[in-house]
């Protein structure tokens, strides 16, 4: 199990990022600066994905009501994802994650969650694909990147 510390850290770092982020500037032929993304869920509540071995299915810990920030579409859907995981319906959880991704397709965290669900289902090719997609959007978020790398190594171990 991951401790909750990296998650809290990543949350605080991301909210800090959001304050000086200059917004999404596309790749341009004239301004070759490296662009960073604001994750769409960064303001909302983040629940911790299960990174337990594929066989186990550990529901996420509930987050106290008071700590909840205004709900975004993605954070609202992530609550439903957690519910579906808790109910043992991983396919439904995957479907809701995909729904969230259609709304926020560049949110690294959502890709990461989907990767984790596919990992738990034993779909390692997809799990790896989603984790790498998460990585491609993770930008400055070092904690998330760490989590993604951890997941990637678990996937690679499991699929061996």
């Amino acid at each position, binding site marked *: 199990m991951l401790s909750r510390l990296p998650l809290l850290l990543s949350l605080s770092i991301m909210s800090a990022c959001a304050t000086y982020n200059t917004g*999404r500037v*596309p*790749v*341009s*032929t*004239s301004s*070759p*600066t*490296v*662009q*960073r*993304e604001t994750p769409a869920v960064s303001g909302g509540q983040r629940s911790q994905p299960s990174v337990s071995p594929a066989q186990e299915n550990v529901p996420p810990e509930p987050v106290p009501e008071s700590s909840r920030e205004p*709900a*975004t*579409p993605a*954070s*609202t*859907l992530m609550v*439903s994802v957690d519910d579906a995981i808790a109910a043992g319906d991983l*396919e*439904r959880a*995957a*479907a*809701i994650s*995909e*729904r969230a*991704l*259609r*709304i926020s*397709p*560049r949110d690294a965290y959502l890709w990461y969650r*989907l990767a984790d669900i596919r990992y738990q289902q034993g779909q390692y*090719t*997809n799990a*790896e*694909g*989603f984790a*790498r*997609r998460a990585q*491609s*959007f993770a*930008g400055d978020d070092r904690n998330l990147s760490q989590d993604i790398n951890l997941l990637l190594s678990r996937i690679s171990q499991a699929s061996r």
Partner: protein
Amino acid sequence: MTELEPGPPPDSQHHQVTGRKWSRLKLLLGGTTLLVTVALAGWFAWIDFKIRRDFETLQWALPARLYARPVELYVGAPVSSEDVIDTLQRLGYRHSDSIDGPGEYSVNDSVVQLWTRGFDFWDGEEVSRQVELDFLGSHVNRLLNLSRDSEFPLLRLEPVEIAQINPDTGEDRLPLSLSEVPTDLINAVVAVEDRRFYDHFGVDPIGILRALLSNLRAGAIVQGGSTLTQQLIKNLYLTQDRTWHRKIEEALMALALELHFSKDEILAAYLNEVFLGQDGNRAIHGFALAAEYYFGRPLGELPLQDLALLAGLPRGASYYNPRRNPERALERRNVVLTRMLDQDFITPAENGEARTQPLGVSERSTQRGRGYPAFMDLVRSDIARDYDAQALQTEGLRIFTTLDLRIQNTMEAVLDGAVADVEVPAPPGSPPAPPLQAAMVITDAVTGEVRAVAGGRKPGYNGFNRATRALRQIGSLVKPAIALTALESGDFNLATVLDDSPLNITLDNGDSWTPTNYGNEMYGDVYLYDALQRSLNLATVDLGMRLGVPSVINTLRKLGFDGDVQPYPSVLLGAVNMTPLQVAGMYQTLASNGFRSPLRAVEAVTTGTGERLARYGIATEQVADPVSMFQLEWAMQGVFERGTARSMLNRLDRRLPLAGKTGTTNDLRDSWFAGYGGDLVGVVWLGYDDNRATGLTGASGALRVWSDIMERLNLQRRQLVAPAQVSWQRVAAEPVHTESARDCQSPLMLPFRDDQMPPPAVNCESRESLINQLFDRFRSL
């Protein structure tokens, strides 16, 4: 003795004979009676058995229903108020000044209020709510829950039904349980068809007598004597035969039905079974489907007068068809209302109010358009491996597709005219040419979900589906695969200087091949990125031959192409046949930065009651290295800024960056454009079915059609995060081979892999600038 014995007197003999005859007759009669009784009993037993067997297992063959992707509403959703209103109309929502119930909406400038019906999606229920949507331009600006007066995050409208797969019988229905049927409808049906329904035992002698009397009085048949039970039997067994034998059999069946089943069960079956109209080759059965077909709304939302109209239809669905015979239908409706009043089902006030209302029938069945034949082809092939035709026609499956009606309908509205605008008329004196044809595929750039398909220039018509079946050479659409092969090899970069000059390639069979540039011009030394952006053939073949044709084909495969291709050098100029759908599959991988996600048209299949049977989720696999993909993306964005698509620069300016590639084949037979923004990938093909020349290049034909459509779709700009291993370096504006010729006056900034340097002859990075750059990178951390 014998002699003495008198014979039987003639009388007695007669009597004896008569008696014997009589007893034989009696025997015969008795036997016949017995036989008849046994036969009748057998007949009745058989009928009784048949009724129980058939009715207990009564299962209608239900067509599979296909749904478009539901409209998602949230703050920032790229949906305009027009889009939402269009969807609400397709869903049969009623426009009203005050909203009193589900299925109604009101509009006030940029504010739309609605009461949703809710929908039990397989991945979660969407509850019915009263909401207010505030729009700003083509986006949702605010979402308010009216019952709680608070903002809320998101909402899904019910999915619009786009098609169905009908059983061979052509029968269609939406079965309801009795509790879902409005009481007014039940009362109306009972009042007008069988007022003694709850009192008789399947056959109604009093009703027959009454009917007989009214018919005699009128001198014509104005009333039928058959009960709802008898009508149900007639409908179930589809008997057209009106002989006495059939009538008796029906009566016996009705008796048997009443013996074994409750009034409610019989009524529910009747309400779902009865024939109420014909829609082309689709037979409308049952009141729930009739409500949708005639009014475009669920039965539960219809007012009294509309329910009365439906209740009048069983008598003659064609004769009283409200679309074709509105006056008769109105008259019939009011007869139903009068009967309801006579039997105290409604008050005089309700009757008075209802009969003054107009017919209220919708123009056409709102849920069903003329269909999306090209998209349906995709759906069929997607689910064919899991479901056979029988299951699709009879099990009432719900198929949730990826079709986006806003995108499909916009494309359909624009395509034909856009093609007409670029079509080159046949020269005067030449025989008239067939119309220039087109195909288009639009997919979600992230998920690979197919959002819209046109199989021809007039997409609503069923015909040859060019999007999935027309195999055409792809021309220069192959070039990004060559550039990617080069970048991934590590031996090339965007500033590699290629040679755009005459080439002569000897083929395996000894023939020689001399490719040329479009317009036969030559450009000498060119940068790799420039050869791609301006689609230079000679430089590309030069590069491709250095890489080897098989490695280029390998890249095509990685990008998702699974068709046939021969490893000839001409592949380097696009001598490979693909359908527009296959091209879309390949460009999908480019649009998602090297993650291949197979195209999908179906997201999930459920039973008629919503239980999940199958789900087809996003699949993804990284097939190209992120730095190479980033470099390729940079080059392809330049296609719009200074390459073959620059004619659209001014028009698409505020949407840039976008990425794409033109494609033109020999003798201008095919005009292609494949391009993508942040949200969508679009592929357009133009050409003639008989392969004659179009007179169009990719830029003068398909690109313009693509722009006409993608602009209307509000295509989003590309957004790309540069991988950490990318470094930007200065390169001389002009490609040269010697350092002495290098001109670093106004250098270009190009993305390189961080362990690569620009070729020395064009490298404009000074030591100082390298330090600055390092410092910049440090600062950005």
